[in-house]
């Protein structure tokens, strides 16, 4: 009976973002509303305008990049209040589009945009895991709503019984791409990161003839060296670097290369 089993207390919070990952959830329509009905929604600012009572939470879903002091405060407070903290989306997981600033003009980027820069927070962009322990990550830009629905039962089970949440399978985008009947873009010399990127997105980009740009991040056993060798005739080193910047992948690539120095 409903009153005997307490509904899990959930919050869905966005830091600095386009909120696309939240909309990816809302776009699930009835299926999302069903989920919302099965939990106690303590804080979800997109759908309710009540004060956050500040109670302890079972799960906090965090979207967006912790850019400002207010963002960081919110993030730390959520971690303290919540049994589980789940990161949703590329901005939170990998720095996202905002991280591009780190790779070129860093603090100076602001001068292209604003005349008065005093009093505007302009820190280096960092991923959520630099600030708090993360219990699970749903990657992508935006996240795949189906993937959220797939892993939610495991996350809830972890709350109940402590059972480990399964990892997203270490399988390249290529597996889904092949299953979907696409012609491999690399065969046509179109630079695609598929082989080194974590699958689970149903190869949504390559299904539309768009090369994978790695928004889900490197998969655990990615072979960046082999990937770069394959891409050598398709893009310059500069072009490779530039493309890895779009979804905050570049720092992970550099770390891989540093860790795998012969």
């Amino acid at each position, binding site marked *: 009976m409903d009153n005997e089993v307490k509904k899990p207390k959930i919050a869905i919070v966005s*830091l*600095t*973002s*386009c*909120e*696309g*990952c*939240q*909309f*990816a959830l*809302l*776009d699930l*329509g*009835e299926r999302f*509303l069903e989920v*919302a*009905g099965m939990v106690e*929604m303590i804080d979800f*600012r*997109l*759908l*309710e*305008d*009540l004060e956050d009572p500040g109670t302890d939470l079972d799960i906090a879903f965090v979207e967006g*990049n912790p*850019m*400002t002091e*207010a*963002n960081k405060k919110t993030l730390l407070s959520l971690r303290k209040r919540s049994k589980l903290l789940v990161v949703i989306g590329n901005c939170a997981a990998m720095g*996202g*589009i*905002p991280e*591009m*600033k780190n790779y*070129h003009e860093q603090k100076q*980027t*602001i*001068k*292209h*945009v*604003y*005349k*008065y820069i*005093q*009093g*505007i*927070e*302009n820190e280096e962009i960092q991923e959520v895991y630099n600030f708090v322990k993360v219990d699970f990550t749903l990657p992508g*830009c*935006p996240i795949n709503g189906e993937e959220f629905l797939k892993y939610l039962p495991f996350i809830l089970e972890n709350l109940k019984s402590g059972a480990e949440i399964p990892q997203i399978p270490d399988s390249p985008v290529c597996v889904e791409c092949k299953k979907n009947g696409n012609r491999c873009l690399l065969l046509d010399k179109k630079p695609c990161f598929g082989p080194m990127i974590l699958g689970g997105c149903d190869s*949504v*980009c390559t*299904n*539309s*003839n*768009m090369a994978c*740009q790695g928004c889900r991040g490197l998969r655990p056993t990615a072979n960046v060296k082999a990937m770069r060798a394959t891409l050598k005739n398709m893009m310059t080193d500069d072009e490779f670097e*530039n*493309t890895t910047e*779009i979804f905050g992948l570049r720092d992970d690539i550099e770390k891989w290369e540093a860790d795998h120095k012969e």
Partner: protein
Amino acid sequence: MNIKINHIAKIEGHTGFMASVIKGDVKSAKFEVQEGIRLIEGILIGRHYKDMPTIAQRICGICPIVHNLTAIKAIENAMKVEVSPETVKMRKVMEHAQFIHSHALHLFFLSLADFLDIENDLDLIKAYPAETVKAVKIREYGMAIVKTLGGRVVHSLRNEVGGFKKVPTVEELQKLITNGEEILPVAMELAAFFKTIKTPDFSRPTEYVCLKTKGEYAIYDGSVISNKGLNIDQQKFEENFHELQRPKEVIKRVQRDGKTSYMIGAIARINNSSDQLTKNAQEYLKSLEYNLPDYNPFHNVIYQMVEVIHCIEDSIKLLKQLTHENLENALTKEYVVQEGSAAAAVEAPRGTLYYWVDIDSKGYIKNVNIITPTAQVLTHLEDDIAAFIPGILDNDEKAMERKMRAFIRAYDPCISCAVH
């Protein structure tokens, strides 16, 4: 007395609002924007133009299509790339779909509860389950179009400079048409429900700015016009509208020459071009018995419903035309990358979106400027609230706050867009 709203929920993005009232006189009414700066314009400089639509659409999760298309149009204008009529038609359909799913989200899930005195949408859904289903189904039609033509709803994939990476099959289009024809009566039913909603009274005459074109209700293209005689080419936008940043603020406000604020969005478009709406949309509008010109921002929500009907009807018409055309003509053909600079404007659900880009001979971005609808309308909203407050002073503080939040939400502000 100070009225301080820390965080306005049920809008896109983060902002608070503060007003100071002394003896019934509103001394100040200001947004306190809490959004971090993503510096999209700054990070685009030096990047290849091919990345611009991908990056720019991530300015906003609810209206990525319009950012994507306006970026593409600006680049095409700058490099003088021509696209096929099939491409233009498909983009128009996508824009209609953008309106349908964004408006349906806003009018039902973000604003409606305000008019029914409900603070949690989960209560709204319990109280109005049939209407909720209708709103969800209407959104699904819009999203199906974007998914079919663009490859994905949030942050589409197939659109690019020059056309599309992949085009749908005739069967896929026919599925959309069937869907659309089923949804139109559902939209009319939801519209009938919205007609019964009582909106607060408020009126403050203003200038309504939007795109206008011959032969159709302007969304994808047009000249920039207003009800006060403005009529300029999109390329002349920045000569007539000036961005200005106040110290410490992260949203650059926009002023018309003459330094007055102005209004955009559904209410502006309908006030300026209602005679260009589709048949059912015009009939519904007439049945509302609003006297145009209408200067009540609360009606913006109902005007969004009018536009949903228009966009459903018009998208069906365009999709039917596309089934008789050669869709392969929309596939991107080779074009010359050359230096140039140009602007482009498209109507976003929330109002006119403007992009300007300067590209070098190798295709790298030298400079870019993005002016979003909400940035344009921020000052106007503050001016409106300053005029609204005296009329609600005889309420307790909590009630006043709720009325102000309802007012702000009726505008459908998108703060993430405004900051970008």
